[in-house]
């Protein structure tokens, strides 16, 4: 593997999970979740706390990461989002409410790091998690394990959405909330499950990202534009689009920075986050509804020489 690829893979799978979380919560509850930033940071700190206090590999603590992320999502739903959804609040209001929640969580994370510093004499403000990793085939093991975990998690999610009765009900609510409600689906529970899964996904993604980058209390706050960029690149319409968008954004950042820095010199490194955002801006200019808005059927039809409307 080329040097950028291993950390790029780790980072991109983390971004894929967080962007997927943003998309999942958006398509179920119309809420653009700002709190995904702090959820990701919380995921990282849970794995860090586990490794530093109880030892072992970071992977061991990922179940706890998911559980705590889910609890954070659950609190957000019951404390905040539920009341606003019942009130039929506007999209911007929903967005702002999660921003408020995110700021409260951010202050708690900062206090927690202060607490760790004082009580355990640690340095939790700049953490490189990958020193707790082991080597596999001459690479960091995380480059193989983390994408695998992400794929397993997403396969499980896919099975849940397509094979179980509740998953089908969830998809029905996403497609048409009114009709789903009329056929007896409890939308309240659907929203709750979306927040729980979304919280778990975001926290797991944050724990992944910390394996590729320096973990800080403002880590999530710093990369939240990229999580959103992933979700928007995916079109904010389908869960799989969001996951793909996050992955593309992550890989573009690492690959772009690597090749551009080789070509133009190291000053490019400072603008690393500009590269995926540029990609997002260009995509939005051409396809205002993201990757999902690319008329694939039409394009293939054109290539095959078919006329429009044949397969409609």
């Amino acid at each position, binding site marked *: 593997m080329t040097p950028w690829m291993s950390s790029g893979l780790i980072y991109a799978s983390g971004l894929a999970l967080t962007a997927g979380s943003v998309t999942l919560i958006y398509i179920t509850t119309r809420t653009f979740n700002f709190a995904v930033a702090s959820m990701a940071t919380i995921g990282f700190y849970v794995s860090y706390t586990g490794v530093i206090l109880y030892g072992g590999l970071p992977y061991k603590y990922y179940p706890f990461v998911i559980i705590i992320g889910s609890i954070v999502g659950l609190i957000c739903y019951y404390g905040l989002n539920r009341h606003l959804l019942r009130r039929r609040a506007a999209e911007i209001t929903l967005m*702002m409410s999660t921003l408020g929640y*995110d*700021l*409260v969580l951010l202050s708690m994370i900062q*206090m927690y790091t202060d607490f760790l510093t004082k*009580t355990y004499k640690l340095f939790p403000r700049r953490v490189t998690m990958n020193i707790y990793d082991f080597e596999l085939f001459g690479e960091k093991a995380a480059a193989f394990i983390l994408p695998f975990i992400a794929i397993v998690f997403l396969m499980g999610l896919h099975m849940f959405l397509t094979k179980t009765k509740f998953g089908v009900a969830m998809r029905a609510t996403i497609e048409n909330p009114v009709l789903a409600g009329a056929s007896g689906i409890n939308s309240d529970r659907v929203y709750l499950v979306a927040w729980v899964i979304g919280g778990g996904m975001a926290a797991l993604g944050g724990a992944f990202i910390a394996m590729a980058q320096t973990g800080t209390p403002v880590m999530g*706050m710093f990369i939240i*534009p990229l999580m*959103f960029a992933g979700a928007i690149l995916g079109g904010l319409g389908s869960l799989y689009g969001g996951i793909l968008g996050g992955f593309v954004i992550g890989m573009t950042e690492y690959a772009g920075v690597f090749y551009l820095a080789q070509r133009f010199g190291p000053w490019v490194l400072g603008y690393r986050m500009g590269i995926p*955002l540029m990609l997002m801006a260009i995509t939005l200019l051409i396809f205002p509804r993201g990757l999902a808005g690319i008329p694939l059927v039409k394009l293939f039809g054109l290539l095959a020489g078919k006329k429009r409307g044949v397969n409609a």
Partner: protein
Amino acid sequence: MTTKNGMITKIKDYMLLREVMVILVILALLTFLFTSRGVPIILTIFIDFAIFAIITMSLNLETGYTGIPQFGRVAAVIVGAFAVGSIPGRIMARFMGFPWGIEYASDTVNFKVVPQITALLASNWLLSLGFLVLSLTVAALSGAAIGWLISRPAIRLKEAYLGISLLAFGDFFMWVGHNWKGMVGGSVPVNVPDPFRIFAGNRFTIIVLVIFTIAFLVFVFLNKLTKSPFGRSLRMIRDNDMAAAAAGKNIVTVRTRSLVIGSALAAIGGGLYVLYVGSVASIGFSRLTFTFWPWAFMMLGGIGSNIGVLLGVFLLCILRTMIVIFRSQWFGFLLVVGIDPLWLEFTLMGAVIIGVILFLPYGLVPEKIEPMLPANRVKRVLAGRQ
């Protein structure tokens, strides 16, 4: 007819009562701070208030009146700050024969050049005034330019897309500021010539007066603007863009104009902040301070109500300062476990946003529904008909 009028006056009284109550709370807090800490802290609060009032009113023009979810307020503020930090000082350096290219921003040169410019400014009040006006003009022009530039790809997008694109643009300018050493020194702060040095001992008071005057002018300007036909078309587009389009309003043009005006005003705010502090540190301009704080102010005050925004800014600025001042006194129990009470600032910001959304959805002073014409003119028109 009389009962209806009676009800309207009742509602009006109630609204006025709310404003008066908020003002009373503010005054009480101010007197408390004044008696316990003295004048300097009051002046600091006033400066904070005036600068954030300008920025928040510009945000209110875009979000409250036009309905653009402006999550990238920091972009225009940064551009205004950098313009004031880089351009007027360079012009002065050029005329005085100092290096004014990229090397102006390097800390070794900047350290020597800026005090000499400041000394020259302090010798001549006309020059000082000219420098101040030049700085603000440069800030406003570059802010307007950036607003126009940002609006090009973004303005046609829908709600959430628009908000996130603006957020991304704001962050982009932040990174440019952190990394581009040639403009304002990247992560090393650059000093700014001080046009207020001529007042020597009274510098602080004069700055308060100047910034207050500018904030007041902005307030008057926005009040006039939002009551003009342009302001009415803004509100029409916010409430129902289809109807506005059907009535012949060009939505893209009107929204672009609103974005340009708002960005220019926010850039003036950023420029004044830089002139007050005396240096530009690009690290200091974060999304948290210059996008999310103004959002919290605006939501507390009442989206779409200028007077409410002013009250919201004042109240929160005081509370924020109080956390900073009394942190060891009131939150000493946190210090015992090593927690810095400064983080409570974020808790306050988040709690205000959540509390306002849940319990006060229209803010402290809700937007008043204004008739298209003033009431006495409506009466006159009706009387003329009969």
